[in-house]
């Protein structure tokens, strides 16, 4: 079954966030990359963009379809992963590592409480 690391928080829409200090790294889960298969293009937000939790701010494209990526938390985009834009298959190979999408400076760390724990995300994806 899909790998679900224990140090992350998840959105129902399959994004994860790993927080250290006031900054979170955002990506999509192993389950999501497996469902998409063959990621061929990644469109990242502009650095400096203010996003709200649940706002579509990136796009991941497989051979078949384009899917929106929603920020799991509110804040300012402070860095994007150019390596994933250059080599979109990184999202398939390392969904929880090198295949991250963007870093965000959290404006409301309280929102983390509304996200899924690894256990509840695992239950949602049935595994």
């Amino acid at each position, binding site marked *: 079954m899909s790998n679900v690391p224990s140090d992350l928080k998840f959105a129902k829409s399959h994004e994860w966030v790993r927080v250290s200090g006031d900054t979170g790294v955002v990506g999509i889960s192993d389950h999501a990359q497996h469902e998409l298969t*063959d990621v061929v*293009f990644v*469109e990242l937000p502009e650095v400096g963009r203010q996003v709200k939790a649940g706002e579509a701010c990136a*796009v991941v*494209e497989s*051979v*078949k379809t384009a899917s929106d990526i929603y920020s799991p938390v509110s804040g300012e985009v402070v860095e994007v992963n150019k390596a994933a834009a250059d080599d979109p298959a990184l999202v398939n190979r390392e969904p929880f590592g090198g295949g991250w999408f963007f870093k965000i400076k959290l404006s409301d760390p309280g929102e983390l409480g509304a996200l899924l724990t690894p256990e509840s995300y695992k239950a949602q994806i049935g595994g």
Partner: protein
Amino acid sequence: MLKRTALFAAHQKLGGKLIEFGGWEMPVQYTSITDEHLAVRNAAGIFDISHMGEVTVSGAASAEFLNQVLTNDIRKLTPGLGQYTLMCNERGGVVDDLYAYCLSGGVYFLIINASRIEPDVAWLQARAAEFPKRGELRLTDASHNYAAVAVQGPRVKEFIGEVIPGPSSSALRVATVTDLKKNEIGGFAVPGCGSLLVSRTGYTGEDGFEIVGADEAMQKVWDTVLAKGQPFGLKPCGLGARDTLRTEVCYPLYGHELNEDTSPIEAGVGFFVALDKGDFIGRNVLAEHKSGGVRKKSVAFKMTGKSAPPRPGYPIWAAGAKVGEVVSGTQSPSIGIGIGMGYVPPGMAKPETPIEIEIRGKRAPAVIVSKPIYRRN
């Protein structure tokens, strides 16, 4: 309630990811569209095409009737031969595109699109009711009697004889199935499978065969193809790879390149419209279109820079104006860039014309290319 083919359990067993297509629940992929696509380009793949429809037309007046309702010249078909053809309305718009086979004298077998079975059969029955020699014509929707698979790829000829052994016993008489040439069809009595129709046709741009038979027979054929083909690199393939394969070689898909308001000439399949065969439905409009009077023209294009893949519905721009729309688009697994087809005004439909594709509000550069987009070296 979605319809399921006789091979539904086989798709579930293989872990196929299921989607709705033309009212059917079909596998879009088993593992990866790219891997399945490349298996067909480099080795072999098997597709469930049981959702497609079959219509039999027979009787002394069957050829005359079909030459009224189809654009290609059915008289070119002798028993055992098939042809790509189209069915048009009076406005020259496409009711469907299909394959017509002659199985024996006065007996024709039509393979039609899954999403068009009901409109096609209604159209054919209405035209048959008006046909003066309707007493010498029998028209049957046999879609529910058949399942079908396509086995496609350069290595298929190395193992298909193990799936379909022996000489054919009806339609084209050949000693072995690999003696069938492109567009030929033979009937084979296969032990445990009854009678199977096998044609050397496909929708991928590769060599291959399409096999039609009863449900239980095709379940056996599916398993046999997997077993005999896997040593040659065969993979089960879903509709996702079927779509990327046909897009690379620019075969039209009904509902994308073709519809009731688009003519075969506009769609770039005018080669299959035989104006010289006498009158047929849509002929007047099609003759005008052939002599240069089209409203739009289908073109193939490639993205020229790094961009998201083009998708159906995206606007096409040229020289600062919106000039058309993408009807098929994907990332090409064979060449690794975005490709597609779309409609533009006839004056712009020339290879090497620069265009732009609007993707989520931003325009990305592309260029019109000659068809097919992908060609084996």
